[in-house]
């Protein structure tokens, strides 16, 4: 039986790890290589590393630093930030990334995503879906001024046969007040791809709620690991009490 995945999300600003609230006010939370070493020693299921300012600042991800992060990891690693070309993806795979996470380029150029899937296989291409609720609508958050509904964006990405989604609620980012269950539930019913639900985890009950009320099979978290004593293993032990299959 496939186990659910509990995945630490490391967000990077080009210098160090940061943690945002609602995608703003980044606060420094440490060194990425050290963090990766700790998560590896804790046997986490997977790691996601995102340079969240690369696209905005029009720079490439720092391959040397990413290489050092991956060196610490004997589990799968997904890397994202400023990916624009097939060569960018190749560079990341060569230094040991298993998947790449793409957002900005996917919004601007769906044809590129199709090309990347054809080249590397869908299992390699993960799409970051950053969602903000505006009035009664779910819209894709971005700094390009692109107006796109969640529904429209996902239907484009489904058409490209991408491998996975990282679904993040911008409104819940860093708030530690619980997941947007309605968003996750709705999203799970629009795709048959694996989804990592992100943003809102603050205590153990939030994780129980996420996995019992939606069909999601992976969760990503950052704040709870930075700002509380909880570890990924604590979350798994909690989920076991709800009969959710976990890898202990």
């Amino acid at each position, binding site marked *: 039986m496939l186990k659910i995945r509990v995945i630490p999300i490391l967000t990077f600003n080009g210098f160090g790890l940061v943690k945002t609230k609602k995608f703003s006010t980044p606060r420094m939370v440490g060194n990425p290589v050290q963090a990766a070493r700790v998560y590896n020693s804790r046997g986490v299921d997977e790691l996601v590393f995102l340079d969240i300012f690369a696209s905005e600042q029009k720079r490439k991800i720092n391959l040397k630093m990413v290489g050092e992060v991956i060196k610490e990891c*004997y*589990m799968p690693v997904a890397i994202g930030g400023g990916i624009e070309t097939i060569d960018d993806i190749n560079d990341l795979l060569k230094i040991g990334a298993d*998947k790449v996470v793409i957002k900005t380029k996917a919004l601007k150029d769906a044809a590129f995503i199709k090309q990347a899937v054809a080249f*590397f296989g869908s*299992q390699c291409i993960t799409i970051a879906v950053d969602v903000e609720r505006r009035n009664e609508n779910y819209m894709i958050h971005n700094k390009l001024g692109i107006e796109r509904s969640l529904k429209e964006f996902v239907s484009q990405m489904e058409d490209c046969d991408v491998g996975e989604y990282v679904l993040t609620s911008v409104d819940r980012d860093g708030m530690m007040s619980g997941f947007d269950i309605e968003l996750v539930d709705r999203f799970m019913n629009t795709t048959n*791809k694996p989804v990592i639900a992100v943003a809102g985890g603050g205590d153990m009950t939030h994780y129980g709620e996420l996995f019992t009320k939606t069909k999601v099979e992976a969760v990503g978290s950052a704040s709870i690991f930075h700002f509380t004593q909880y570890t990924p293993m604590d979350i798994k032990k909690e989920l076991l009490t709800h009969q959710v299959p976990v890898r202990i």
Partner: protein
Amino acid sequence: MVAIIDYGMGNVASVQKALNFLKIESAITSDPELIEKSDVIILPGVGSFLQGMKNLKSKGLDVLLTDQVLNKKKKFLGICLGMQLLAEAGTEPNDNPGLGWIKGKVKKIENIPFRIPHMGWNNINVKIDKYYSQINEKDFYFIHSYHFVPSNSEVIAATTNYGIEIVASIQQDNIFATQFHPEKSQEAGLTLLRNFFNNA
């Protein structure tokens, strides 16, 4: 020395990192001379079947590896796409020949009540325990949308359940292969690799 075959299909660095951890000497290479000198050959790989075969052929590696493994009986490990390429054929978009060392075809996973790709940690049921002592039932990391369907079930070394039985590992003479990624499966994966190298 272990030759990790470099044919432009993904994650060779992770395989070498795992071997370094186990203190096993290796080289990432497509150099025929070095491959001929090696004691063990590892064929890793992610991506499409068609592209994988194309890349092997463009470097003449299909012929060289077939000679090394089938004629010279060199110890061989295939990982993920490196297992699938051993089949007689892939089926998408239509039938394309593989290396043909193991009878069977690679097919798309479909008609299951679960999400595709099959992505994450799944436990295996061991059928041939040559390299799986102490790790039967353990979880390994899978990430694939296609699976190997062998003609002869006697080559199946392990299976995993994902709505259907999926072949997780193959064993035939000097050929060993895994659909999952041992180099990404932490303790269980490193134990399997250690068993593979320690066990003649």
